[in-house]
């Protein structure tokens, strides 16, 4: 069974702090994603990565950066947290090269971030 694990479920940070959100998947998936979930706005893609050290901006990358040094791990970084980044953050992964199954993505449980 695919497992996408987000290390922190609930975080409270101060404005201006640097924040790291970690995500690990255990299925050797090629693609990994960070989404932000807000009421009334649905899920919006922040960044995604299709290979180690490769990344592409999503729809709302401003204020965020990412890191993918190993295939199984994808980190979201808020260089200087602001109150408008208070949200639920969802990590996801897809594409198992062994099976060729491309079009199912698996989500983590989410990380609730509050910036005060």
């Amino acid at each position, binding site marked *: 069974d695919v497992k996408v694990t987000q290390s922190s479920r609930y975080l409270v940070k101060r404005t201006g702090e640097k924040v790291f959100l970690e995500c690990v998947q255990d299925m050797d998936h090629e693609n990994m994603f960070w989404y932000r979930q807000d009421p*009334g706005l649905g*899920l919006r893609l922040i960044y995604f990565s299709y290979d180690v050290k490769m990344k592409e901006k999503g729809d709302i990358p401003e204020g965020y950066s990412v890191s993918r040094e190993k295939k199984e791990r994808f980190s979201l970084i808020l260089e200087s947290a602001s109150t408008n980044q208070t949200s639920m953050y969802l990590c996801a992964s*897809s594409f198992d090269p062994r099976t060729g199954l491309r079009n199912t*993505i698996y989500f983590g449980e989410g990380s609730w971030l509050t910036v005060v």
Partner: protein
Amino acid sequence: AQRVTQPEKLLSVFKGAPVELKCNYSYSGSPELFWYVQYSRQRLQLLLRHISRESIKGFTADLNKGETSFHLKKPFAQEEDSAMYYCALNMGGTSYGKLTFGQGTILTVHP
């Protein structure tokens, strides 16, 4: 640019009543459409996809390319169907999994 619209933020029905969650999309290519569901305190999970043409938990959805819609339907709603539902579009290609989501619809099924 692609877009997914779910016109209803909230939908309430009584147990046993039919339910339809609306989804419209705009995309110039051949889309792949999905419905995802998030039950209370659980992770977002795939409910169904249009290419499978399957019925999951009694739900079905048909892709109507003429009306650019992918509405989710169930003939007899159950209380355990209460959840947040998202319609999503995948453009395909090398960015599989790069989904565009609608705003979501909260379904509440009353006893």
